[in-house]
Each structure stands twice: as structure tokens, then as C-alpha cells.
């Protein structure tokens, strides 16, 4: 099994930044090179995409980018885990989809799209997954109010006489 740190350093050099916090290994990649890095990682044994998460860094101290997408990868042979992060910004937050590598990315990327509005290019069916289809906002963005903009009450009531 090749050493992942060495492999990524040889292959990508400065394009991949490695940090470690409490034994969690994180690699920060530009969105343009995400698929290459993920392909190398999958070839190095990280065969399981455990999670895809979105982050909105609005008002976050010292944050330089608005959105983050975090991929949690696991190696089912050695139980190693790595986290791959990409950062994107308004007005066009776009990340290439990793669906061709892990089919399990399908619904997880849809959820990130639903909650943050990050578009996954190449996803076969990028629709909302949790919110109703007519919903217009991205509710986990930090500039979206906790109680919504009134969407939860935009339904016609049924009165007793008509039902």
C-alpha cells in the first residue's frame, strides 16, 4: 500500500495542502483538480466515500472563501480516513461531481446542493432531496433566517365546510 502523503506530494506538489488536527488528515484541493486527487486517493485504497458535507463560512473568523465542501474518505482495508476539502465562492459555487468514482455520492451531493446551493457539475440528477421542489432558498446558508422567509406557511388552509 503506497503512502498517501508521499503519493499526493509527488503527483500534485503544492496543489494539495496537507494539514493535521488531532490525527485527522485534511487535504485542501482546488476544485479544478478535485477529480484527479480523488482518483489517486481511490486508487490508493480509499474505496469508501463516507460523507459529503457542506459548510458556509459567512462571518467565520479568518475565512477567505464562502463555501466549503468536505469529502470524508475511508479505507476499508486499513480503516484509515482522510478528509478532502474544496472551497468555492459566489456567484457560481461549482464543484465537479465525484459520482463517477463513488455512486454513493449521488444523494449526498444532492443534499449539499439542497442546503447550500453548491452545484455539482456532472451529477446525473441534481435535484433537491430534502426540501420541496418549489423551494427557492438554500436553508443552511448563514444569510438565510432560522425561521425561513415564510415558506413554511405558504399553503392554502382547508376549512371544515369544504372538506
Amino acid at each position, binding site marked *: 500500500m503506497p503512502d498517501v502523503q508521499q503519493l499526493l506530494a509527488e503527483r500534485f506538489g503544492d496543489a494539495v495542502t496537507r494539514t493535521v488536527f488531532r490525527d485527522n488528515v485534511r487535504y485542501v484541493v482546488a476544485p479544478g483538480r478535485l477529480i484527479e486527487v480523488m482518483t489517486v486517493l481511490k486508487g490508493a485504497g480509499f474505496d469508501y466515500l463516507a460523507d459529503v458535507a457542506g459548510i458556509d463560512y459567512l462571518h*467565520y473568523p479568518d475565512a477567505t472563501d464562502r463555501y466549503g465542501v468536505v469529502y470524508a474518505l475511508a479505507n476499508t482495508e486499513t480503516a484509515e480516513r482522510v478528509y478532502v476539502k474544496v472551497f468555492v465562492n459566489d456567484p457560481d459555487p461549482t464543484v465537479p461531481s465525484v459520482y463517477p468514482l463513488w455512486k454513493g455520492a449521488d444523494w449526498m451531493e444532492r443534499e449539499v446542493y439542497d442546503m447550500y446551493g453548491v452545484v455539482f457539475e456532472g451529477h446525473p440528477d441534481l435535484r433537491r432531496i430534502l*426540501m420541496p421542489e418549489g423551494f427557492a432558498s438554500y*436553508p443552511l446558508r448563514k444569510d438565510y*433566517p*432560522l425561521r425561513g422567509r415564510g415558506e413554511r*406557511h405558504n399553503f392554502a*388552509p*382547508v376549512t371544515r365546510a369544504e372538506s
Partner: protein
Amino acid sequence: MKFPDFIVTQLDWVANQARANSLWPMPFATACCGIELMATASSRYDIARFGSEAMRFSPRQCDLMLVAGRVVMKMVPVLQRIWLQMPEPKWCISMGACASSGGVFDTYAVVQGIDRFLPVDVYIPGCPPRPEQLIRSVLDLQEKVKATGTVNAREFAARAEYEGPTSLVKQLAPDETMVLPGDYNTATRLRD
């Protein structure tokens, strides 16, 4: 003493007795209130004593909708459709804090009380309510049916007005919608 082999009464009274003592619930259980609802049907509390033990998971065979738990906005059209599928006469019990008011779930997706979209006859407080409270609400509904019911359900025609609370729909201006992290004043205050 010989009893007569006939009684004189009103059709309304007969219908009310029959309906009130066999309210078949449609359990619309979406959360932990549903567990209490199941407990109410069990032998310890035994809602069968009051004729409401026949829970039917098909709205077409029920005349009492029991909404137990929070309802999110995606569920509202489903809930309304199930309500419309129930045959007349029908009644609705809103069980627990979430179904009645949204409870602690004051978020963008959770409806703040089903009475904004459905006519509710009896509300049960509690989080979740005790089974005794649910039985009490069924008894209260029986009283309501006996007091107001008619054989052809014409009392419902008078309820043509919206019976819920005033609408919460409020379009916020873009600068009002900013919630700063850690600013619990902004995040939790009532937007008025």
C-alpha cells in the same frame, strides 16, 4: 312492567350516540407522540373502553384524524390530502405541542401548528402528552359530537371560515434576514 317495543327519539341523537362511541382514529403519527398513542391503545390504558381502538391506517375507513407529532412543510399537502380522503363526518385531534404549535421546532421547515391548514377540534398539550390526556381528549370530542352532531353532518357547513390563528406569513427584507453567528438575540427574537 312491560316495556314498549319501540322508542321515540331524534335521528340526530341516535347518530350522535353511534358516532361518538365508535370514533375510529387515523393515526397520523410522525414523532414521539406516536409512541404515547400506541401506549394508549395498549391494555394498560385501553382506549377500546371508549370505542376508539380500531386504528385504521387508511383514511377512507376513519372518522377521527389524530395528528401526533411535528409536521414539516413538505408533509402539509400529504396531510391535507389524507384529511380530504376521510369520509364525512370526521373530526381532528391535534396531539402534543408540535402538532398544536410547532413546539420547540421553530425552524424554516416545521409548520407552526396544523390548525393553520386543517380544522382542529381538540388540542392536547404536552410533550408528549400522557395517554390519560389522549383518552380525555377522546372523551371531550365525544361530548362535542353529542352536543353539536347532526345526522347529515350539516353542522360542518357553518364552519366555512378559517378557524386557525392569524397567518404568520411574513416576507422579510433582505437586510432583516442576516443572522450573525453567536448573536442569539437576532437568531431567536420574534420577527415583527
